[in-house]
Structure formats: structure tokens, C-alpha cells
């Protein structure tokens, strides 16, 4: 039953599977983001309160989602590396960190550009904004910690520990608009039973969520291949892999 799981521990298998998956993810991402951008910018009507400024949601909300999704993935991969001593767990965590950090930065910048016309300011020390900024610092911390050790194994373990401790911030980000008084609007899409959007606004947004997730998958596969090669440079299988 667990054979598939243990096969994921094999670097040549991961290297090969990542090469197969990357173009599929990239194609799906291009289609979904293309539909989302056209639907969001052209066909969705302006919001009755926020006017056309609401269209920022089509990049802001998916990037916010990706920032949390990538962090959770990084923590789970780090935990797998720590608990089962699977090297590929640490490789996935290392490959995920810069992608997640870039999505977090995107969420912060687009949120700030949305905040200016809606709240009258680019930045406020609001619970949602502050916890998202902490997430960016956590990403930077994890990325800086790994190469700070001479022994790569120790660097991997330290980075995994930090990412596992920091995962507590993910539910804080998500529920910050519920637990505290916040300038940030509440859940719009997560209320799947009764989303507060008409279909013409919602479908392009869901497509953008899917597109960003597939894009993350594609970039993760590409980066993971580099990470595997860096870690397995001396292995025999690498000879065949890099020469083909």
C-alpha cells in the first residue's frame, strides 16, 4: 500500500516524474489563467461597492491562497524529511520556499494597491496584513537558514523545524478576519455553500485559483529537478540523466 510513497523517496524517480508533470501543469495553468484574466477583466461586471477596483481580487486572492498553500506544503515536506529521513522531503521544501515567498510578496503588493483606493492607505497594521507579512519573514528565514550551516543535512533539519513551527501562522492568517476586528473583508469564496459573488465574477476567480495552483506545480517540478541534481551530483544515475 505504501509502495507509491516510498517510490517518492527515490531521487531518479522524482527527477523523471517531475519532468513528465511540468509541461502538463504549465499547459493547465496557461489555460486556466488565460480564462481567468479574460473573464475577470472583460466579462465580469464592476462591483456595486468597489467598482472596477475589485478586479484586483483576480490576482490578489489566488496569490494569497498560494502563499499559504506553498507554506503548508513546505512544512509537510520538511516534516516528512525529518520524521522518515526522506531526502526528497527536504528537496521539495527547499524548492517550494522561493516560490511561496514570491507569491506572498505578490499578495502583499496587490493587497496594498487595493487598500489605497478602498481604505485610503497602502498599509495598516491590520491582523490579516501583519500575519501575511510575518509569513514573508518566515519564508525568508527558512531560505536563509538552510545554507547557513556547513553540513547540508543540519541546514535541512533546521529549516524544516522552522517551517514546522511557523505553520501555526497559516490558520492565523486565514481566521484573522474572524477572530479580530479587521479592515480586510471577510471570506468571499471560501463560503462554498453560499459564495457572496455571482457566477460571472466567481468562475473566473475559481479558474485563477486553479491556474495559480497548477503554475505552482509546474514551477515546483522544474525547481525540484534542479534541487535533486544539486543534491545527487555524485550519484551514478545522474550520469544518464544529465546526458540524455
Amino acid at each position, binding site marked *: 500500500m505504501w509502495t507509491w510513497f516510498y517510490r517518492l523517496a527515490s531521487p531518479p524517480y522524482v527527477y523523471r516524474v517531475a519532468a513528465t508533470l511540468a509541461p502538463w501543469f504549465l499547459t493547465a495553468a496557461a489555460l486556466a*489563467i488565460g480564462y481567468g*484574466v479574460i473573464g475577470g*477583466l472583460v466579462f465580469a461586471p*464592476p462591483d456595486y461597492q468597489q*467598482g*472596477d*477596483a475589485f*478586479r*484586483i481580487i*483576480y*490576482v*490578489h486572492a489566488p*496569490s494569497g491562497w498560494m502563499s499559504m498553500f506553498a507554506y503548508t506544503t513546505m512544512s509537510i515536506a520538511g516534516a516528512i524529511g525529518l520524521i522518515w529521513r526522506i531526502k526528497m522531503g527536504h528537496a521539495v521544501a527547499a524548492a517550494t520556499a*522561493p*516560490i511561496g515567498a*514570491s*507569491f506572498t*510578496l*505578490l499578495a502583499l*503588493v*496587490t493587497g496594498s*494597491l*487595493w487598500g*489605497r*483606493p478602498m481604505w485610503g492607505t497602502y498599509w495598516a497594521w491590520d491582523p490579516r496584513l501583519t500575519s501575511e507579512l510575518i509569513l514573508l519573514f518566515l519564508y525568508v528565514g527558512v531560505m536563509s537558514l538552510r545554507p547557513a550551516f556547513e553540513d547540508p543535512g543540519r541546514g535541512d533539519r533546521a529549516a524544516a523545524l522552522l517551517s514546522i513551527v511557523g505553520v501555526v501562522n497559516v490558520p492565523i492568517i486565514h481566521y484573522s478576519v474572524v477572530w479580530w476586528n479587521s479592515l480586510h473583508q471577510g471570506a468571499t469564496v471560501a463560503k462554498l455553500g453560499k459564495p457572496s459573488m455571482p457566477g460571472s465574477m466567481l468562475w473566473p476567480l475559481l479558474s485563477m485559483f486553479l491556474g495559480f495552483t497548477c*503554475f505552482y506545480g*509546474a*514551477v515546483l517540478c*522544474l*525547481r525540484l*529537478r*534542479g*534541487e535533486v*541534481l*544539486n543534491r545527487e*551530483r*555524485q550519484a551514478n544515475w*545522474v*550520469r544518464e540523466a*544529465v*546526458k540524455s
Partner: protein
Amino acid sequence: MGGYARYVWPCFGFACTVLAWNLWSARRYHAKARQRALRALAMSDG
């Protein structure tokens, strides 16, 4: 864009930049790792 163009377009522009950077840097990372592996193999072959 109903007066919001200067907020909306930079958001989409920045998103485009971030996605393009991710793709470019991931490809570059893999290419560099491959070069390093080839160099290591060449050295071990003598």
C-alpha cells in the same frame, strides 16, 4: 477601469512579472544544476 486603472493594471503587471520570474528562475536553477553535474562528471572521468 472607472478611475481605478492606476491600481488595477500595476497589480496585473506585477503578477505577470512574478509568474515570469518564477518560470525563468526555475529553468535557470535547473540548467545551472545540470551544468554543475556535468562538470562534476567530467572531473571524475578525468
